[in-house]
């Protein structure tokens, strides 16, 4: 009953939401007069703030003005000085790296805390950064500018420019979009390697991104995953495996990673170890779970009747297909056969 109410509400709200979005670029949602005033003030301040810089740093100023930050109507968009510091002393000293206390974001001389602090001065009220202080990136001295390029041109299909420090080394991709994994894997080399394994989620193909599962801006969870637990994260896409099941499989309920490697694996279905071995590591019994399945049970075994049904194809899963859980009655469900 409750579900029906939700479903009806959702059915009602969805078109309304879409209609609202369709009108999104129109004037349906006008800003307050205070906001309009702030916008005007920001426009004149921004113009003044960039004039001092454009003489020496024309390319940087131009690239900045083409970003969302640099738009004259963006009241919250900073001018050069808001991020790099006061230019007066910098100009007075004749310019140069760090001259007059000017702050650069590409070198190592400025601490990660200082770099991120500059961004957070405006963005720390953003919902996306609510858990920045609890996240691993802050702890490990990762600054906003390590991933974001404030002067860079956003890649195809993107509104923000991510830093890509290396040439793209991938198989042929059918997408021309800027893929965020290229930014993430410039530090996370282990993940770069796993993403190109024979079994992988379609990350390098651009069909899902790192931030579909992880929140790089901080989270309260381990590995900064976007759900409260690993099963909750995995089943947000693999909803058919949510259950609940009449016959559950305890490791499935508790941790998908007991059997799967999420970023990539040598083995189909992202299994961390090949079946039947991965199953036998838990299941030993007098009969077939405890039997050795050696190479003489392969498809080339002679006579053909010697081909071992527990070794070939999916191994144990040939029979026990419903290892994530079953709703079949009796022993057919108990042993995940139906």
């Amino acid at each position: 009953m409750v579900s029906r109410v939700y479903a009806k509400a959702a059915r009602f709200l969805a078109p309304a939401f879409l209609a609202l979005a369709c009108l999104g670029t129109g004037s349906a949602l006008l800003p307050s007069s205070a906001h309009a005033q702030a916008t005007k003030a920001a426009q004149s301040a921004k113009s003044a703030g960039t004039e001092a810089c454009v003489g020496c740093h024309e390319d940087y100023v131009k690239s900045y003005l083409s970003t969302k930050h640099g738009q004259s109507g963006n009241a919250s968009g900073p001018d050069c000085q808001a991020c790099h510091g006061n230019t007066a002393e910098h100009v007075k000293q004749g310019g140069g790296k760090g001259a007059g206390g000017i702050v650069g974001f590409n070198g190592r001389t400025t601490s990660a805390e200082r770099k991120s602090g500059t961004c957070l001065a405006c963005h720390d009220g953003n919902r996306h950064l609510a858990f920045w202080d609890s996240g691993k990136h802050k702890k490990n001295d990762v600054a906003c500018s390590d991933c974001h390029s404030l002067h860079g041109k956003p890649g195809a299909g993107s509104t923000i420019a991510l830093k890509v420090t290396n040439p793209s080394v991938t198989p042929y991709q059918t997408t021309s979009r800027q893929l965020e994994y290229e930014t993430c894997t410039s530090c996370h080399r282990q993940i770069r390697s796993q993403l190109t394994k024979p079994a992988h989620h379609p990350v390098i193909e651009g069909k899902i991104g790192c931030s579909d599962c992880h929140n790089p801006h901080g989270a309260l969870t381990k590995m900064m995953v976007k759900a409260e637990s690993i099963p909750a994260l995995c089943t947000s896409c693999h909803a058919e495996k949510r259950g609940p099941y009449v016959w559950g499989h305890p490791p499935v309920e508790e941790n998908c990673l007991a059997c799967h490697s999420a970023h990539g694996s040598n083995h189909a279905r992202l299994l961390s170890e090949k079946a039947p071995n991965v199953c036998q590591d838990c299941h030993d019994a007098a009969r077939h779970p405890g039997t050795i399945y050696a190479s003489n049970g392969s498809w080339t075994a002679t006579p053909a009747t010697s081909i071992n049904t527990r070794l070939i194809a999916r191994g144990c899963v040939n029979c026990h297909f419903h290892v994530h859980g079953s709703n079949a009655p009796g022993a057919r469900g108990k042993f995940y056969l139906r």
Partner: protein
Amino acid sequence: MIMKNRPLSILIANLLAAPALALAADGGMEYTGSVSIGARSVNDKTQDPSKLNEYRDLDGGAVLGGFELRGRGNNYFLNGFGENLGLDDQYLDLKGGKYGAFRYQLYLNDLRHNFGSGPGARSPFAGVGGATLTAPSIAGGFNTNPATWNTFDDSYKRRDWGGMFEYQSGSPWYIRAEANEVKRSGINVIAAANGMSPGNGFTDLPAPIDFSTKNYTAEVGYSTKTAHVAANLLYSKFDNGNELLSWSNRFSNPAGGLLDTTVLPSDNNLTKIGINGNIRQLPGDSTLAGRITYSNLTNSVDMLQSMLVQFTTPGLSNQIAATNPSSPTFKGKLQTTTLAVSLSSHPMKNLDTRVYWNYNNESNKSTRMSFNPAANQGLRGGAASGAGNNPPVNCDSGGLNPCTPEFFHYKKNNLGVEASYKVNAGNKIFGGWDYYDVERERIDFHGNKDNKLFVEWKNNSFDMVTGRIKYHYLQRRSDWSLTPGLVQANPIEPYVRRFDLANLNQNQVKFVLDASPAPFVEIGFEGIFKKNDYSDTTLGRTQDSRQEYYASLSAGDPSVLRGLIFGDIEITTYDSYHRVGTGNPNPATAPTATTYNWDARNRDKSWQLGIGADWSPMARLKLTGSYILAQTRGTTDFSVQQGGPTGTPFPSITNFDNTKRKTLNLKAVYEASKQWEITGGYAYEQYKYSDIGYDNTRYFIPSNAAGATASNPAYVANQQSSVVTGRYSFQPYTANIVYLIGKYKF
């Protein structure tokens, strides 16, 4: 059909309408963008192109259409993007909004996950794609001539489309709403045992995929520099168009006519409410953050009241047996409550700390089902209690106990403290402790306590070099016990510890080095060694280890020429110990020829070498190229306890998912004029695959129980045969891909 076109039409309407509206409102929106069209030719040599096309639509030649629109105004912004229009990996995206006020997104993201086609997707069944699979009603086994089987497309198409709207204007309050639908349709090959014993064979079943997941999220929040609080609601509904699959089971019903039933994923509903927030600028420069969620996952499954079961005497009769469930409907209900609290502080100069607590309580309030099918009718497993060598604890074939599922749920408490101290400008040390206390209802492990300690040292004393070394030790101690009934039912259980929760000592060392010895030169190295010792495990996984090494060198000015070369090596080893036989289950007892201990060592080795470069030989021309050579090898070695079987060969497995992959990817982008850009490229891919489970697939395995052989005539009197569809068996491919795209920019 209507559903398919809807998101596309919405996006197109937006793209056409939005600029005009925005322009009128903004008084000066500047647009840039492009329209591109091109062609791609793919020449492949493969029996089954599914691996080549696993997530990409490279199915022969294709017209490549795309566009990009970027609008920037004084107040509004807009981004539209589309590529691979009309192909299986089509992507459309529209983002926009007003600075400091609102933003929105509409998107459509398609992919097709290909598993098999041609010889990699054959089935003796008729009706593939539907919910009923039938085979010819000829007494005996399956048609053993796969050349005459039906072929199908073993793949499913996934379409994710939806949108987001977020509004926050001149106020700390904001609202956000998201909605999307993920539709999956196609075929996925599942499988089923023909009967209850593995000796009865199995059958691959091309099952229909008709999944839909609709997600709706709403969030209201208040966010300032000093505090954030948000309340959110998620409703997610999963629907499966086919909750049952009926199929001809030639073992259970050799005469045909009666169908077996496999239960497919049921519809489910997930509702989750959550509140999260933080308070910043507390004493000690602290931030207190927290989140609480409550979710309710439900489903309703009508229990099968009867099922086809195996014949008692081959060829004599068919049986439909009553399942006798305790309730006609299973009402699944999982309620999960989570709480997370984190206090991050900066109590003194150079010191950062974090204390956290995570709580997760999954409560299973589903119907407590039991089944009481009649004895010896095929819906019970194993022999009668005490009468056989491995009767299950219940659901015994003697009918002494009803079949009662284990009931599983858990409660987890996770506490931890972390600290980092900046010793001086060049050195920082980290340390921490992470503790888990878990209580669970499970037949073997009833709880566990994990203690993890870590230390880390980061050094950047030298301007050009940053090094980091981290060590952690994890000790897990579990509360393990079995009921006497379980031990009686399966006497080997007292010696088995399942690795997911067995007592564990884990050591891991990670070393990272990044150096910039000269401008535009970066050298990186990462090494990881991890070892898990399941110290108290007699039977099961006894230890596993990982060694990983990653090295890279990049050099060059990105605006002219830059290159990258990297090499990765990964070696994983899993050791396990087992006992087989119907004799004394105690591994400490002397072996016999039929009851003995054995061990296995599974080793996966993989490496890859990659090289790539970006080059701008002239202002109008950009060249990119990369090459990857990668290899994986999987092996298993067996050894048998001395005094066990003699002369029984247990030859090693040398090809568990052995692959070798070469990919060359070259691309040139030439800016012919301010308006015209031409992109051309060539890619070469070669993929070799060898696996003991898939090499030399015959589609059909006769059973020795019936004395049949592969050379039998088209139909053999063998109900215990197995059939596979050929999935993964014909994957190797070589492909040449050429493409040319013209882009008009405005």
